[in-house]
């Protein structure tokens, strides 16, 4: 970066040698920055931020079987993690039950299999879900969430009080090339149904977490990330506006967000600050919603896995440390620090411990929590915040011009952006434009670190298949059939499907069966990925 002419942020914003009061002279403090917890929320969503309460240490995890995942959750809880976050395995995300032959090789990989209510119950056995909140990275239709709710009901908990979040997000769903998915517009239908249902039945639950993490890991930059994120949220609001069933302020009240945390330290901080201001503008100016609580960009952030290298995995401890710090200085509400072995395997005990420790050290030793938005006022950060916002608005406009996010996905534009970004990233790596220490610079012949490796349990699939067999045997099949029929009926009629989904779960319907209704009605959509 020694050439004074061409220094840019990771997203391509030209960066000057130095920023001075000149660069921020047009900023009106009250209009553009303000205090934390007050519009436009640039400096933070809450008035006291970390002085009042630290962010949640919440790590996405799950593997092998519900029992083993439960054991892991109990350990994480003991170590100081303060919220749960369930990573579903490949079979669950795809929406096929464990006994479907397509999926046998994938059961228990990359997450925990949850085909039935029983699986969810086993995952949360003995855990105080009324005390902590849970994030469900649920597939289209929020079926696992329905299982979570039914579990809560059976524990005697009041759904009106239950806390947590369901992903329910079109953007992150669009990224992985998964089979067995409905088309984007169908996704939006299910997603909005779920939000509507929650406003009435589970008002403390966050029924959506707009999530740009996956998109960012495709190689998009911070501007594109923000743009897609905002455009997705706008898509949902437009859908509800069209339906007119729930007042918009109630609809958006518990929107939450999820982004990646990438390498450009200050750009990531500025991105979060810009996001807060943008969201406020969307809610207040575009939709005229007065209640300031509706305009809070409450965000969970995760260190970006695509920046963690397979080579020299211990270097990732450092990368993750900086990304966590950027998340803190950017004012996130909840942070997931990856395991340093993210590029090698699922987290081992050692790497899990280190990630929790990273957040604890940032929270308790560095004193960065002593004041809110400590970088506020910096000539550089305020300039960068402004520039990111401006560019992100332009990107939102691009997507709007195509008819909105669902349309942009359906016609293949979004996936072309993803693939272009992927190819461009490879080009910049090969040319040395981007440096990755230990990979394209200072690369060593022999791997210098020995780290423990996580091994998946080869018996997990059989265990899961067994369990599911038993589950199906013990249920009232006619009740299940009836519930599924009803589900198909409301799906076709355009009514809110979610009450029928809840019923199907109570009756013992499996994820695969409920997802099957989605395909029956909407058909299967293929992600437009290819060369």
């Amino acid at each position, binding site marked *: 970066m020694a050439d004074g002419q061409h220094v840019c942020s990771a997203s391509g914003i030209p960066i000057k040698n130095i920023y001075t009061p000149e660069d921020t002279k047009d900023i009106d403090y009250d209009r553009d920055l303000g205090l934390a917890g007050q519009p436009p929320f640039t400096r933070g969503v809450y008035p006291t931020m970390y002085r009042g309460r630290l962010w949640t240490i919440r790590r996405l995890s799950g593997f092998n079987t519900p029992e083993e995942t439960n054991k892991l959750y109990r350990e994480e809880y003991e170590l100081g993690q303060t919220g749960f976050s369930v990573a579903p395995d490949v079979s669950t995300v795809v929406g096929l039950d464990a006994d479907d032959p397509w999926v046998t090789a994938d059961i228990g990989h990359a997450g925990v299999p949850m085909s039935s209510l029983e699986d969810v119950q086993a995952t949360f056995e003995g855990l105080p879900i009324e005390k902590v909140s849970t994030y469900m990275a649920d597939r289209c239709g929020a079926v696992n969430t329905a299982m979570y709710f039914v579990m809560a009901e059976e524990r005697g908990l009041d759904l009106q009080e239950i806390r947590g979040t369901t992903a329910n997000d079109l953007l992150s769903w669009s990224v992985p090339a998964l089979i067995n998915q409905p088309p984007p517009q169908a996704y939006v239908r299910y997603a909005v149904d779920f939000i509507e249902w929650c406003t009435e039945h589970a008002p403390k639950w966050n029924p959506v977490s707009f999530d740009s993490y996956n998109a960012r890991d495709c190689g998009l930059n911070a501007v594109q990330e923000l743009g897609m994120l905002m455009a997705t949220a706008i898509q949902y609001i437009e859908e509800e506006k069209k339906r007119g069933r729930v007042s918009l302020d109630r609809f958006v009240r518990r929107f939450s967000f999820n982004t990646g945390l990438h390498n450009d330290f200050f750009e990531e901080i500025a991105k979060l600050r810009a996001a807060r201001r943008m969201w406020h503008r969307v809610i207040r100016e575009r939709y005229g919603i007065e209640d300031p609580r509706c305009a809070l960009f409450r965000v969970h952030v995760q260190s970006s896995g695509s920046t963690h290298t397979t080579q020299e995995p211990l270097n990732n401890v450092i990368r993750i440390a900086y990304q966590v710090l950027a998340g803190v200085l950017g004012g996130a509400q909840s942070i997931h620090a990856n395991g340093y072995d993210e*590029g090698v395997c699922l987290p081992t005990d050692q790497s899990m411990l280190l990630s929790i420790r990273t957040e604890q050290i940032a929270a308790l030793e560095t004193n960065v929590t002593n004041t809110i938005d400590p970088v506020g006022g910096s000539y550089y950060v305020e300039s960068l915040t402004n520039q990111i916002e401006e560019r992100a608005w332009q990107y939102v406009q691009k997507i709007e011009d195509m008819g909105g996010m669902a349309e942009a996905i359906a016609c293949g534009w979004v996936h072309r952006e993803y693939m272009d970004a992927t190819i461009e990233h490879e080009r910049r790596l090969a040319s040395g434009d981007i440096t990755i220490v230990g990979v394209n610079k200072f690369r060593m012949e022999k791997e210098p670190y020995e780290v423990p490796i996580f091994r998946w349990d080869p018996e997990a699939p059989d265990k899961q298949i067994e369990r599911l067999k038993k589950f199906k045997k013990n249920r009232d099949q006619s009740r299940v059939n009836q519930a599924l029929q009803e589900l198909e009926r409301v799906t076709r009629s355009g009514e809110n499907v979610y009450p029928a989904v809840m019923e199907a779960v109570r009756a013992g319907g499996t994820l695969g069966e409920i997802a099957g209704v989605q395909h029956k009605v909407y058909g299967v959509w293929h992600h437009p*990925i290819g060369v």
Partner: protein
Amino acid sequence: MDKNKVKILMAKPGLEGHWRGIIAVSSAFRDAGFEVIYGGHMLPAEIAATAVQEDVDIVGLSILSSNYMRLVSETVKELKDRGRGDVMILLGGIIYKEDFPALKEMGVAEIFLPGTPLDEIVEFVRRNTSEASQKVS
């Protein structure tokens, strides 16, 4: 059909959805002048059937979900059963180094971990296919 052009089938035998690596490598192969068939998600049997039908020289597999031992061995078996045990198999994704010997024993020609420069992969194919493209049809 251009018998001198190396033909590669790129596929994901498991169901996890990471496509960044397979797309990057597929593009590099295409830019290098190889003929690329992008298969996306394909079960091992499908991969083998397509390999036969399209008469490919190489099958490239991308797996990021730690179930590669099973998926690779199934794919190899399906290819052998259809008389195409000669197809070169390349593997990319998250693969543990300690498993490399076993995979090579199974029949994988080479394994490419994340961070491998694309031109290295292209070079490998070039170097190792001058014989492959001269197979008896």
